[in-house]
Structures are given as structure tokens and as C-alpha cells.
């Protein structure tokens, strides 16, 4: 099962890298580059969120019958993040450096405390619940790409 968990954690780290690149471009006011890097970042995030919402969470919910528990909170936090993605893309359109940097600071903390919960709490729970199915789930995740 660690294979699956490690793949998801690797996605978190890869998204972090793209986040940092986009933020740097905005700070330097290189707007064309920033727009592209931010789009990459949001696409990678969206892809990761879909891996969870469309494959991992449903499998977990089905196995454990917990539909209103941890996964619901994670989905809500995903929505908060999506709102910030939207705001950040708007800021880039308006070439609003300060606005973006404020939003990205907020997103960073939201995203990292979210990842922390997943990596420390949810993923270990998933690992226990879905031990037998990991190859199957990993294959489904791989089929959803950017």
C-alpha cells in the first residue's frame, strides 16, 4: 500500500515546486511567465484533487461506510483551495502583485495544513482500509492525467 501513498505524497511535493515557481514569477512581475506557471500549478493541483475526489475517497468511503467523516472535510478544504486558485488567476490577469502574494501566502498555509492532515491521518487510514486494492486504485489514478 505504501506505493499508493507514496505516489500521492509525491504529487503534493510536485505541486509545491510549481507553486514556488509561479510565486517567484509574480514577485518578479514577469506576468506572461507567471500566467503560464500559475496555470501549470493549478492544473497539477486540480489533477491531484481529482485523484482523491474521484478515485481515492470513493473507494475509501465504500469500504468503510464513512461518507460524512474525514473525506467530507477534505472535500470542503479542496473547495477553499479552488476559490483561492480562482482569486490568484484573477490577480495575475489584473497584474496585481500584492493581491497575488497575499492569496498565495494564504493558500500555502491552507494547502500545507491540509496535506499534513492527509499525510499524517487520512492516508494511514486509507492504507488500512484499502490494503488489498492498491494496484487497482493506483491504475485508476494513473488514468487521470493533467
Amino acid at each position, binding site marked *: 500500500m505504501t506505493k499508493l501513498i507514496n505516489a500521492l505524497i509525491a504529487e503534493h511535493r510536485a505541486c*509545491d*515546486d510549481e*507553486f*514556488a515557481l509561479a*510565486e*517567484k514569477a509574480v*514577485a518578479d512581475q514577469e506576468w506572461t511567465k507567471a500566467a503560464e506557471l500559475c496555470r501549470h500549478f493549478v492544473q497539477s493541483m486540480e489533477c491531484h484533487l481529482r485523484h482523491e475526489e474521484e478515485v481515492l475517497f470513493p473507494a475509501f468511503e465504500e469500504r468503510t461506510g*464513512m461518507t460524512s*467523516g*474525514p473525506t467530507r*472535510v*477534505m472535500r470542503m478544504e479542496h473547495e*477553499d483551495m479552488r*476559490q483561492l486558485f480562482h*482569486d490568484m488567476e484573477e490577480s495575475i490577469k489584473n497584474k496585481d502583485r*500584492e*493581491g497575488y*502574494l*497575499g*492569496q498565495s*501566502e*494564504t493558500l*500555502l*498555509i*491552507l494547502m*500545507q*495544513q491540509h*496535506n*499534513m*492532515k492527509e499525510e*499524517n*491521518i*487520512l492516508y*494511514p*487510514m486509507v492504507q488500512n482500509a484499502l490494503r488489498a486494492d492498491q494496484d487497482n486504485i493506483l491504475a485508476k489514478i494513473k488514468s487521470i492525467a493533467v
Partner: protein
Amino acid sequence: MNSKTGLSLTQAPPISVPLRFFLTAPLFGLAAAILFFWFGPAAIETRWSPVTLAITHLLTLGFLLMAIIGAMMQMLPVMVGSPLNRPRVLSTVVHVFLCLGLLALACGFLFTNKILIIISMPSLAAGLLLFAGAASTSLMRAATINATVTGMRLSVAALVVTLVLALIVSTGHAWSWHVPKTITNVHMTWGLVGTVSLLIIGVAYEVVPMFQMTPAYPGWMKRRFTTLLFIGLLLWSALYALQSNGSTLMTVLADLASSFLALWLLVFAVITYRLQGQRKRRTPDVSVHFWRTGLICLGLCAVLWVVSRLWPALDNWPRLNMLLGVLMIVGFAVSVINAMLYKIAPFLVWLHSQHLPGSARAIPNMN
């Protein structure tokens, strides 16, 4: 709430739970600063002046521990997956006991008032033990036992040791009998190297890589570091207590043990400093500056301690203890805790406003 494991992934506790600690921490810090400017150099002339003791505890209990307790109430659900039981009641009671106890203690020191010292003892004991009990319960149920959980557990254990020793030295002030200074030194070492440093190190394992986007801490360090520091503290305490009989062998061994503790902290400072040098996020970040200032002070403090063990002239320098204390408490701990507050407090407010019923989604951002 998953009733089987007691795990919960719900959003953090109600905002009032951590925020009351975060709001009083700077007030006590301010009180310490006012005392310092009011009394001027007299405040740091000798370790034992009433003002010095009052300032020390306004900073350690009032600022550091207040912020640490608030942060743990906030972070336990996120990092460990098991929130504190009945957070509202718990935080109110702990907060009231701590504030009253600390005010009594600080005024008791300042005015050399025995009654106030006697009042402070049960009050601080109740507040700290309640917190320690609740935090331990939560940490026992942790979903994963990682290096951060270990660091937090050891820190809470060290808090209890600090408190027990604190009560012993307090009886000296309350009933004016002589308590050996050895006990005071062991008390403050468990407070600063135990409670405060163990917590900062444990939390750094998660917080530095994630929020500052640095590479992860090396695996060997996460596995053993805090446990060795705790064992080192136990060993040093025993040797140091035996040393007071005047045995040279014990003195040498105690110096070795304390140098080990200092060097161990130096290793943490150097590794963290280097990790932060490799951070991926290149935009300037005030909290990283606080961190780095703190780490430099911690490193200086550690080096100064080891050198003073080897070089008697430095050991005899009357200002040494004061310098060590200022580097450790203000330079290191206050800076690093500030760095954390600077991140956590605005985020809490943001999170709170985000989830107010009926609030517009276009929320002012954090900067």
C-alpha cells in the same frame, strides 16, 4: 469523528480556543519589556534580583508557554488527528489558571511577597497539569507516531518535570528557607532545553519543510534526536545533582553531559539553518528571518556554553549566565515562537472568517 479510533479530521477547534493564548502571549511579552525598560540595567545585573526573576517568567511562562499551549491546541487535530477533549472548557480553565498564577508569581517576585508566591503555586500547577494531562491523552491516541509526535510527548513530559522542580524552588521563596541553586539550574534547564526546545524541534520537523518549502530533515535526525536529548537531560540532571557533593569526577561527567546537550542543540541549529538556505520558495518571508536569527542565537549560546566548560576564565565571567539566558530565551525561543505566531494567527483569522455562515467568499487575504 471516527468513534473507533477517536480520530477526527474536522476543522481546527473554535477560534477562541487558541486565540485567547495568542492574544495574551504578546501582552505578557510587553509586560516583560516594560519592566526591563523601567528598571534599566538593574534588571539584568544579577540572575537573582526580583525583577530578573519576574521578567524571566513573564517571558517563559507568559510569552513562550502561552504561545506553545495555544499552538498545540490548534495543531494537535491537524498534525496528530486527535483533538483535545472539550476544547472550550479546557482552554478557558487552563488560560485563567495560567494568567492568575503568572500574575501572582511575577508580582510575588517583584514585591518579594510570600502570599502571592503561595497563591501562584497551586494556580500554575493546576493550569499546567490540566494542559499536560489533556495533551498527553490526545498524543496517546495519535494516528501516526512520527518524529513530531515523539517530540511533543517528550516536551509535555519535560513540562511536568519543570513544574515539579519549580514548585520545589518556589517553596524557598514562599517560606524563606534555603533551596540549593542546583535545583533552580535543573529546573530552568528542563524548562528551556526540555519543554521549549523539544517542542520547537518536534514541530520544526513538520513546519520547516512544509511551510518554508525546504528539503526534509535527515531521517537519522528525525528518528533519534529528541529521544537522545531527553535521555541526555536525565543523565545530566543525575550527574549534576551528584556533582554538588564536590566530587571532581562527577563535575567532569556533568560538564561532558551538558556539553553534549549544547552540541546536540547546535546540530539542530546548523541543520535547520542549512535546510532553510535550500528553500524552494524564493520570496522574502519575515518568519524565515525570525527563524534564522533564532538559530544563530541558539548556536552562539551552545558554543559559549561548551567553551565556558573548557575555559575557566570565561566560566568566571560574571556576565556569562545572563548572556546565555538572553541568547536562549529572547534570542532563540522568542524569535522562533514569533515566527510561528506570525504565520498561525493571521491564518486562523482567515480560516474563521472563511467559514462564518453567510460570509462573502471574497475574503481579504493574509498580507
